[in-house]
């Protein structure tokens, strides 16, 4: 930069007859403005590029859905009808219905429900969960998560909202939104 300044202010035969050269101070402040504008432009471009990679619309299944009536589910069974579409198991016990999210809490694979062994078993690393969702074997550090479940007031169907999750280790499974009482 020093070179540029020296050249710019050095008197020359040609410059003497033409428009006067800017002062050293004026030149430097214009240079600063130019650099700031350039940096701002590059910064804006980087911001645009980063933001471009985060889409506004996703073509993924919705996180909430209606799952039919409580009477559609057999007591004592783990129902897999919504597993493929919404990644949820609906379990009905003697006195309650709850929705387990089918994502293994170890590293995010989808476990299988093994009816004969009465447990969920993840094929990736062998994590095992009881029907309640509580983990008992394999590397997983915590139980499966439950989704918010309620009876829809307009038609009496089960309404499941995966956006609200209930974690056993935080004592949230006793929350009234985490299950439906059936008796």
């Amino acid at each position, binding site marked *: 930069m020093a070179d540029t300044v020296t050249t710019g202010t050095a008197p020359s035969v040609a410059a003497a007859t033409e428009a006067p050269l800017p002062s050293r101070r004026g030149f430097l402040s214009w240079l600063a403005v130019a650099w700031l504008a350039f940096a701002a432009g590059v910064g804006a471009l980087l911001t645009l590029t*980063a933001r471009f*990679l*985060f*889409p506004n619309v*996703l*073509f*993924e299944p919705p996180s909430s859905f209606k799952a039919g009536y409580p009477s559609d589910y057999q007591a004592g069974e783990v129902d897999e009808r919504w597993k493929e579409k919404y990644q949820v198991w609906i379990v009905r016990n003697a006195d309650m219905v709850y929705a387990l999210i089918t994502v293994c809490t170890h*590293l*995010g*694979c989808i476990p299988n429900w093994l009816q004969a062994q009465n447990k969920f078993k993840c*094929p*990736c690393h062998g994590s095992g969960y009881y029907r309640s969702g509580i983990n008992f074997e394999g590397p997983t550090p915590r139980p499966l998560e439950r989704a918010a479940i309620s009876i829809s007031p307009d038609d009496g169907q089960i309404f499941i909202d995966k956006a609200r999750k209930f974690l056993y280790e935080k004592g949230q499974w006793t929350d009234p939104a985490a299950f439906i009482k059936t008796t």
Partner: protein
Amino acid sequence: MSLEKHWRKLQRSVVETQVWKSIFRVGIPNTNRKRVLAVLGNVVLHLHPVKTRKSGVKMRYTWCAGGMTFFLFLVLTFTGLLLMFYYRPTIEYAYGDMLDLREQVPFGVMREMHRWGAHAMVIAVWIHMFRVFMTGSYKPPREFNWNVGVVLLVLTLLLSFTGYLLPWDQLAIWAITVGSNMARATPLAGYEGPFAAQIQVNGVNLVTAGSDARFGLLGGRIVGANALLRFYVLHCVFIPLIAAFLMAVHFWRVRKDGGISGPL
């Protein structure tokens, strides 16, 4: 006229044309100086050093592991380019195209060469790194090049990782699901990572499952169509370009730092 005279005349009629001179600027390299200039003035030849030390070709010392890695990179670039003529990175076609590449395309071995070449390249990189470590070739003045090499190692693993998803079979989907879940734990940028919960505006978390590093990597919350396309672009264009640039720096520094290290 003797045969040699005819030969000289023929030679001159070729090397003294404007076309020849526009391509080869030095002329017939019949002196040491011209030979050096010919090497330096040629884009392909200048990638090689003008002179190689005797120790530089001592296989028992270098194992040529870096050379093997580069060779495998070239093989993977070539076979990968051929695979791109058939493979479509969409959920509907990806798996079927991968099978067709093996069964329905002449020389279906191309896909296997790409796959096994990828495995071999990762192994070759580790061997190269092991050799450089054991011979102490990371020491000054080569410490900067060791760092370039570490970045190249990461890029090799990222190429391997992004290529893993492209067959779009169960193994691929779940491997990438598991692998990309690590991004959830990125400090600040992953929604389960340290300090992410502290980034709030008016009590609303800015780093969530819908805006964190994993989301940006996959283009969604799950490994789906966006993730497949994203990994394809990263695998075929983005990472290879960066890797090629750093390889150029790597090789250039090998020479600037005194050539391939040899036994002391």
